[in-house]
């Protein structure tokens, strides 16, 4: 027998390596029971799977609450939960890839997915909850809307957060405010007062206010909310952004929007805007503000939770005020209903187990945990008052309770609207980008840019609606809505 040549050895090793590499490249779902989860079942899978449940979301501040809930679920006899917290920017792409390769997790949130849920539903992304009755009785019938959470009489998801919220709370660092002569207990309430406070802080040696100008979507949210305080008859959130509630027409060129943008740019004119604002998104801006770079910042209620987790020494010094209004009168905002937070995968083979887990999220204990996490306000706002949340967070939630009401959404009136929205082409530049352009000096005719945005948005919507039977532009018009009352499921029937 001839000795083995070097070539034979190399080729054998090469073949072995290639075999191993090909085996490692196999990303096909493992079979149930092997420890993998949420995969391998055909669309609309059944409920008899074994192995762990997989859960993806982007709620980093809720991580410990989620882990606690999952541990309790396992203790009660449920399977273990493989829990992944994604960066919101990355989750959409991960879900997109997972769906294509039939590896969606059993439960997931929809961060980064801009496609309407009805379109995803038609493609087989979701399974209905098998514990719909338990969840409905825990949350109340009014919380759940057809076309938003319920489709063809099947419940697919539910909100864990309250729609009574906005992002433009005015937060301050008490030490810096007091040094500038601004009362942290009575934060400025009118636009002029905020400007005066920012100027005073600037004079005292710290930048007056920080705006996360690099984050176009957040700046857009600020202006949409501020415009309502200047008299725009709109609803924040969902597909109603920039739409006049009474007519159903896009009205970004309403004077209230121009005034809101002018209010924000006035900080730059006054010299009280933190100079690096243009390079900061919400997360980086919050960190710079917490480090004492500026006295004031607009931010959502979750600011308190982030401060407690990352800048705990600042927590006792947090001062908070409601969204300032043009004339200082109490704000009255409408916010669209909150859609489903978590969804069951249409590819899951553990629908029953995942549904059981979802029931735990509708319980009072979970709502209490949400309050203490100080992220978005829990669906049950009353849970906050009795929680261990920081006083500033409690104050913010109390203001939401007074100032925000639930507005209408066209998807709940007519499910065909959601299909049309899925076909609507994005319009560029968006409101947020226009705001950036105003700050960078490239957009000088604000009214003109907003008029163009309204026209382009209307054209895109009309083109989308024309492709969908049963959808109409009139679905966005709600006539005279009482802004002091919630728009409930019963009101859609009127």
């Amino acid at each position, binding site marked *: 027998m001839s000795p083995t040549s070097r*070539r034979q050895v190399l*080729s054998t090793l*090469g073949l072995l390596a*290639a075999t191993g590499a090909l085996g490692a490249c196999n990303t096909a779902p493992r079979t149930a029971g092997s420890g993998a989860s949420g995969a391998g079942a055909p669309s609309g899978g059944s409920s008899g799977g074994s192995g762990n449940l997989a859960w993806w979301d982007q709620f980093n501040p809720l991580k410990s609450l989620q882990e606690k809930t999952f541990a309790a679920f396992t203790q009660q006899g449920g399977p273990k939960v493989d829990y992944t917290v994604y960066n919101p920017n990355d989750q959409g*792409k991960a879900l*997109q890839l997972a*769906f294509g390769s039939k590896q969606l997790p059993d439960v997931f949130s929809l961060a980064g*997915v*801009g*496609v309407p849920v009805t*379109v*995803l539903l038609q*493609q*087989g*992304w979701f399974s209905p909850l098998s514990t719909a009755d338990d969840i409905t009785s825990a949350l109340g019938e009014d919380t759940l809307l057809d076309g938003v959470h319920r489709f063809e009489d099947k419940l697919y998801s539910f909100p864990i957060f309250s729609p009574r919220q906005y992002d433009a709370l005015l937060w301050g660092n008490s030490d810096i405010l007091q040094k500038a002569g601004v009362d942290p207990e009575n934060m400025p309430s009118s636009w002029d007062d905020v400007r005066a406070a920012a100027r005073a802080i600037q004079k005292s040696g710290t*930048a007056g206010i920080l705006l996360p*100008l*690099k984050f176009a979507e957040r700046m857009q949210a600020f202006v949409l909310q501020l415009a309502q305080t200047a008299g725009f008859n709109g609803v924040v959130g969902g597909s109603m952004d920039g739409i006049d509630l009474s007519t159903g027409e896009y009205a970004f060129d309403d004077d209230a929007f121009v005034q809101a943008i002018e209010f924000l740019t006035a900080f730059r004119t006054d010299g009280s805007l*933190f*100079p*690096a*604002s*243009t*390079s900061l998104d919400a997360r980086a801006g919050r960190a710079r503000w917490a480090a004492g*770079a500026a006295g004031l910042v607009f931010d959502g209620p979750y600011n308190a939770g982030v401060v407690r987790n990352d800048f705990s020494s600042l927590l006792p010094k947090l001062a908070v005020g409601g969204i300032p209004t043009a004339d200082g009168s109490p704000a009255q905002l409408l916010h669209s209903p909150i859609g489903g937070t978590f969804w069951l995968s249409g590819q899951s083979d553990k629908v029953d187990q995942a549904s059981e887990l979802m029931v735990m999220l509708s319980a009072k204990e979970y709502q209490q945990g949400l309050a203490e996490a100080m992220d978005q306000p829990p669906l049950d706002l009353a849970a906050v008052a009795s929680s261990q949340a920081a006083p500033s967070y409690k104050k913010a939630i109390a203001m939401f309770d007074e100032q925000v009401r639930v507005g209408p959404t066209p998807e709940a009136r007519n499910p065909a609207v959601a299909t049309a929205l*899925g076909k*609507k*082409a*994005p319009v*560029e*530049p968006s409101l947020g*980008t226009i705001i*950036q*352009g105003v*700050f*960078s*000096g*490239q*957009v000088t005719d604000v009214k003109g840019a907003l008029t163009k945005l309204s026209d382009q948005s209307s054209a895109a919507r009309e083109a989308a609606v024309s492709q969908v039977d049963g959808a109409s532009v009139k679905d966005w018009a709600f006539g005279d809505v009482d802004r002091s009352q919630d728009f409930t499921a019963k009101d859609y029937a009127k």
Partner: protein
Amino acid sequence: MTASTTGAPATGALAPRQGPRRIGTLARLWRDRWIYVFLLPTLVLYGLYTLWPVAASWWYSLLQWNGFGSPQTFVGLQNYADVFRDSLFWNSFKITFLFMLVTVPVRVLIGLVLAMVLNHPRLPFQRIFRTAFFLPVVTTTAIVGVVMQFVFDPASGPVNLALVDSGLRDQGIDFLGSSSTALWTVMGVHTWKWVGVTMIYWLAALQTVPRDLQEAAQVDGAGTFKVFRHITFPLLMPFLVIITLLTIEQNLQIFDLMLTMTGGGPYYSTEVIEVYIYRWAFTTSVPQLGFASAAAVIFGVMLLLVGLVQLAGVRAARRRAGVV
């Protein structure tokens, strides 16, 4: 059939061989099997990660598709028409070419100057300097982009602190947040990051210049400038063409630095075509993969044209240098 086609000897073992034998395709494949086995990983990976995405982009550019799920509508050349109608595409086109027109000459020139200095036989610490200038090249571009945000921070960045402390400015310049400075700032960082590569090209080219020619000129009384003007530069001309063309192609691909430093903003003022494509494919509320693919195909064709010019340029340069 003849022996020459089958490869079998025509007249037994003692017959003289008449030239090289011709063998069949299958036999040749079997004979060279190890060549193909070792080529296979490269072919598979190249096919998967280069050829397939290119082919897929061409197909996607003919579809209306949001990238979520299966519904894909064939729309023919509509996406191309939409791209050509979009003023922001032409804005990106203009910025991409402005970037290239400014940075290529600067990079080529600075690279040459650095190479000349570092090639001087009496310069001490040559290796240290060469390493120092090449170091940014091997640094991850995304990290450079993020670090540069801090370097150019208007409130606390070292550049602005130096400007304010030295009394040159009352307050910091918003280098990356102002549309009048953002593109120029990225151009500067890009040149700093990549000039090391151009410098290495020039250093290699300088090794081809015969030193005895330069020394002869110096003996005849030529100064440094005259030696460069009449000896070195004419001999470097063919390399100038090649290095310029290579730099053009590199400077058209600036996605990572632009995305990390400015994200294309403020208000599209630094949105090069690659960022434009990325925005439509991944960051809009509803991704427009068909539209983005059409823009990508147009950009690819543009790069192909640059490549063809490059090829012609290299051939011309080789002819000029007397290389066949």
